[in-house]
């Protein structure tokens, strides 16, 4: 155990969540800028994909980890965003930023339609409904093939890069920028009044309602935020894949995103990056190299990713429900302790403010899971 004494004031993280999160985002941005400069085109492309899935996972993570709801069809909301962007590009030529916002808004609107009936009740309704939604969505594009481009789907042109910037790098920057902005917004959301009421609803709906939290509205807001994140991810995914069809968004995508969330650490915004690594690399590179090592036959290698994700979901839930980020935090707490700086005397207003604000972990989220209330089965 390493004990670290009070840090000098310049080395301390800002106390305001907004500044702290902004600092993290800027540091992340600088890190990614230099990383993209040193990577090859293909690796940059992968980095972009990482950012995209991190957005979808982070949204789901906020929904599940801090609001105690679950979406089994996050991949379907990704599809809604992707189709929205593709339709806008086919029919209208509007600014890319607006297209991406529209993708997020459309997915959020669909999320609203799902959430309003499902969140009125406590129970497995939202889970079942989102699974049904994920399975039903591909049938819409079959039925209205003219509009959705049928089996071929719709093509999306990559955004044109300004000046002499490499187009792949430009797209990666756009994706990374969106990911950082989304995470900044999510982290701030969690530190705000909304985040506190999300957690209150998760922990005890009745107590939250008694404390003046509008439970149903709260759950709807959390779900819409999560689906909007998925929609934005879908729009960004469409830009890098260049084509949008139903084959791109099977049920397994929803499962991959869910498994990414569970592995990364449910409720942790930063943990979404760990999960995203899994979602990007396991279905392709890792299963290929494992297949070559262990000589899988073609049936096993075709299904390896799906089996692995299923096993990850089950094993993580049984063994380590707080995920990698939970483990990192645990390790951090075991290894290093910061002694809290003493407040200078006379500065009462500051310490009062501090007392009013509950102490939060560094990325503004919590890995703890909602307490059980399923003991009394009925």
């Amino acid at each position: 155990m390493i004990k670290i004494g009070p840090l000098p004031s310049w080395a301390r993280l800002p106390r305001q969540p907004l500044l702290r999160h902004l600092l993290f985002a800027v540091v992340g941005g600088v890190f990614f800028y230099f990383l993209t400069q040193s990577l090859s085109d293909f690796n940059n492309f992968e980095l972009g994909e990482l950012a995209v899935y991190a957005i979808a996972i982070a949204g789901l993570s906020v929904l599940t980890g801090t609001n105690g709801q679950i979406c089994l069809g996050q991949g379907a909301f990704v599809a809604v965003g992707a189709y929205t962007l593709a339709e806008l590009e086919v029919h209208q030529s509007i600014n890319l930023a607006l297209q991406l916002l529209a993708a997020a808004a459309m997915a959020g609107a669909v999320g609203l339609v799902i959430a309003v009936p499902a969140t009125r009740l406590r129970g497995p309704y939202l889970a079942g409904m989102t699974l049904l939604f994920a399975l039903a969505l591909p049938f819409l594009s079959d039925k209205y093939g003219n509009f959705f481009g049928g089996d071929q789907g719709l093509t999306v042109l990559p955004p044109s890069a300004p000046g002499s910037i490499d187009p792949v790098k430009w797209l990666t920057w756009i994706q990374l920028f969106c990911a950082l902005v989304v995470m900044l917004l999510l982290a701030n959301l969690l530190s705000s009044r909304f985040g506190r009421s999300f957690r209150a609803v998760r922990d005890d709906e009745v107590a939250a309602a008694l404390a003046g939290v509008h439970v149903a509205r709260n759950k709807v807001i959390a779900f819409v935020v999560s689906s909007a994140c998925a929609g934005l991810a879908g729009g960004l995914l469409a830009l890098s894949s260049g084509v949008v069809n139903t084959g791109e968004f099977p049920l397994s995508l929803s499962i991959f995103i869910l498994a990414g969330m569970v592995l990364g650490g449910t409720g942790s915004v930063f943990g979404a990056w760990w999960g995203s690594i899994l979602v990007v690399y396991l279905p392709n590179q890792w299963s290929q190299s494992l297949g070559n090592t262990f000589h899988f036959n073609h049936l096993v290698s075709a299904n390896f990713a799906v089996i692995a994700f299923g096993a990850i979901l089950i094993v993580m839930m049984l063994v380590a429900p707080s995920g990698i980020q939970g483990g990192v935090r645990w390790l951090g707490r075991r290894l290093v302790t910061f002694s809290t700086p003493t407040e200078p005397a006379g500065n009462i207003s500051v310490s009062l403010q501090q007392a009013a604000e509950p102490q939060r972990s560094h990325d503004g989220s919590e890995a703890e899971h909602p307490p059980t209330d399923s003991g009394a089965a009925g």
Partner: protein
Amino acid sequence: MRLFVNITLGGVAEGLIFSSVALGLVLIFRATNIINFAQGAMAMLTTFIAFSVLGKGVGYWPAFLVALACGLLLGGVVQLTLVRPVQNKPPLNAVIVTFGLLIFLEGIAGAIWGNTNRGFPAAFSQKGLVVGKTAVAFSHFDIFIVVAVLALSILVGVLFRFTTVGLRMRAAAFAPEAARLLGVRVGRLLTLGWALAAVAGALAGLLVAPTSVFSPGYMDLILVYAFTAAVLGGLDSPLGALVGGVITGLALAYVGGYLGGSLQPIGALVLLIVVLMIRPEGIFSQPTARRV
């Protein structure tokens, strides 16, 4: 008119299949407050086992029994190994575990039997019966579906109402602590409940397979239709599951018959939304107060 009659008959047969999956969901939900999202995938696995047994040339009925027996075993094993550890955790943990099991079993089935679409034999002829002089879209196999699902429902009803085991299972579901104090082995009965639910699922798997393409994902939609049916019936009422299944089957048959088959999943989604908006507690559910 003839189209309407045919669609209705088809809807009833299809709906009873949903009923039998929904019955499995309800049995588990009543006892453990968990929706088993792997119910369909477990049924898929037992049906694939029956498919392999059939390939050995032993005939339909031995394979049928093997599938039901495997269902019993699988349900018990899943409860003991995967569900029991998350039983007293937050409800989301169980959702994630059963959902993970769904995809895991589908992957395993794909790795063993391949992801190709196959055909699965039916126990009886699937040609429409001739009533008077007109052929109707209701076959011997559809009669078998009706008989099998009703028999299963009656068996479950008798078990719960008239046997000691059933009484204990009801007690374990209704008041686990009190039942445990009175000497009921609650844990064992929960395992038994899962096993029975998996048998209901296995039966459904065998009944669905001949009427659709047979591949590892073939129970996915059936599962969500059955979920709709179970919600419609109130989630904790076996009778509700039966009736909910038939209503869902009829509704989807009309959507499929008049608007096109590819709108059926959307129809189910709309039905679910309407039910949750209008009567979220379902048709047959007892009004309950949630304890704080």
